[in-house]
């Protein structure tokens, strides 16, 4: 009796859930373009590298903001911790494996940021949104001042010099045109994006969306809300740490700037610009942000923030869901979830 109405509904539901996580061709096209762009526009490799790093950082913020509803103004702390971890490792190894190995640097940066993320998650997850904003901001300020204070380790205001990562996978040397850097960063972004994509479509991911949607009900279903939020906060911290590590390795330096407040704020802006809770919003938002900066500042060096601000206001007020929301509307796709 496989064609009873019940069985038909079961099959329909099964197919529906399967379709949610399916790769669609625009996604494949986007990633193909991301890799191809390095070959097509080698003179833009440094810009592509920057975009990839920014996108990864924004992606990590989208994981907590878009999927778990945790607002943060201090996400840059993890980015900075990752940058210093990778920078110090590369410096310690003096350009030779194993210590200067970039992959090791990424793992170490991710792990360090994750540990700090887990430790601070207990503070961050208390209280309401405003409390969260202030606590995350406060933690970021503390880390910034620590990096400034311990200048014998971090180089203080002069920055960390002599960051010399070894060849990527022992094969590819970082070149001055940034081609290796761009391939390296885009690849890391792609891999971590795929992982994030799996996670947001998993039972764990749907429980986060449920918590964001209605924490009261999630608890009544038996979801350990705090533990789940701590887990995603820790993961997002690791992602941000890896993004920071990419910046340290590909630019061969770390300055106090990695811990500046504007990084956290810019990233929040990028996620909103791209579309919160879409993953792709982080990537598209980062590209749009960087290209807008490049474009506008080629006309007016000083006032680019004016135009950025104007675009942001228009987008937030009149186009719900950022660039991804705009695309969904233009292609006539119902904005889902």
């Amino acid at each position, binding site marked *: 009796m496989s064609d009873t109405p019940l069985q038909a509904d079961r099959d329909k539901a*099964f197919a529906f859930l399967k379709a949610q996580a399916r790769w669609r061709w625009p996604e494949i096209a986007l990633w193909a373009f991301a890799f191809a762009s390095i070959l097509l526009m080698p003179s833009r490799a440094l810009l592509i590298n920057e975009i990839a790093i920014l996108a990864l950082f924004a992606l990590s913020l989208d994981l907590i903001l878009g999927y778990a509803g945790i607002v943060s103004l201090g996400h840059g702390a993890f980015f900075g911790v990752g940058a210093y971890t990778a920078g110090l490792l590369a410096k310690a190894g003096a350009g030779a494996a194993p210590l200067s190995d970039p992959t090791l640097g990424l793992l170490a940066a991710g792990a360090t940021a994750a540990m700090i993320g887990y430790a601070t998650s207990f503070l961050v997850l208390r209280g309401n949104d405003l409390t969260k904003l202030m606590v995350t901001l406060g933690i970021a300020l503390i880390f910034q001042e620590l990096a400034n204070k311990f200048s014998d380790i971090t180089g203080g205001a002069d920055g960390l010099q002599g960051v010399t990562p070894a060849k990527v996978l022992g094969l590819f040397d970082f070149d001055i045109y940034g081609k290796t850097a761009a391939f390296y960063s885009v690849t890391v972004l792609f891999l971590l994006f795929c992982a994030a994509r799996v996670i947001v479509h998993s039972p764990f991911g749907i*429980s986060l969306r449920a918590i964001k949607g209605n924490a009261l009900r999630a608890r009544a*279903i038996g979801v350990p809300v705090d533990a789940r939020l701590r887990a995603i906060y820790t993961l997002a911290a690791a992602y941000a740490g890896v993004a920071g590590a990419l910046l340290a390795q590909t630019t061969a330096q770390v300055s106090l700037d990695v811990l500046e407040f504007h990084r956290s704020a810019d990233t929040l802006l990028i996620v909103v610009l791209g579309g919160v809770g879409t993953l792709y919003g982080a990537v598209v938002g980062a590209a749009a942000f960087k290209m807008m900066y490049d474009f506008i500042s080629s006309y007016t060096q000083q006032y680019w923030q004016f135009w950025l601000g104007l675009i942001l206001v228009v987008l937030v007020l009149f186009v719900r869901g950022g660039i991804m929301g705009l695309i969904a509307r233009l292609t006539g796709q119902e904005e889902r979830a």
Partner: protein
Amino acid sequence: MNAILQTKGLMRMFGGLTATNNVTFSLPRGARHALIGPNGAGKTTFVNLLTGVLAPTSGDIFFDGQNVASWPAYRRARAGLARTFQINQLFLDFTPIETLGFALSEARGEGAQFWRRIGTHRGVVDESVDILERLGLGDVLTRRVGLLPYGKQRLLEIAIAVAGKPKALLLDEPAAGVPEGEREQILQVIEGLPAEMALMLIEHDMELVFRFAKSISVLVQGALFAEGEPAEIARDPRVKQVYLGESEVEHHFEARA
């Protein structure tokens, strides 16, 4: 001891106000019990205390033999104490199939799995569909919850709560606000719940109460005021007294007296 859920001297204060006053209460396994009381009697506060949304000021709560008074809400839910809400608490941008699949995954202890997409466990999907069909939601499996008619949303409230096969289910005004034509469906769903599942219905609608309940507790100003079989409660002049002014209810007692 045949009670699934018990309280001893349960108290809850909000500042100087006593919302729950020294309640010692027992819900037998497989019960069909109703908790009634005039507006502001503290019925929902009592449910919130039982389920861990609120912490008691003092007193104990026993569920399935364990003192759960200090347990967080999610642990009580996992132990088999489920509830529905007086005001819909749903995930508006989910679909019913996602909602049920999620609730079932959590009940099976698979909610933290991050390495596989949802819907790969055929058993979970099939069971979700079965429950939804049984509760009259089979035609809206893949519609957004926020777009469902109110009556369907009320049914989904119950579907979520029964997904984990709880030992006790607290139904907080399940038919509240449901248009007359759709009430009957909700009543039938409640009556069709497994006999071994203890049910406590918090309700204002006396027709529903007297049709459903085998026993009734009356809560007045946070304290247990009367307990007994429906016929006794209906005859009790003191109960009638506390409902004075709530004409609809009054009328119901008149009819039964």
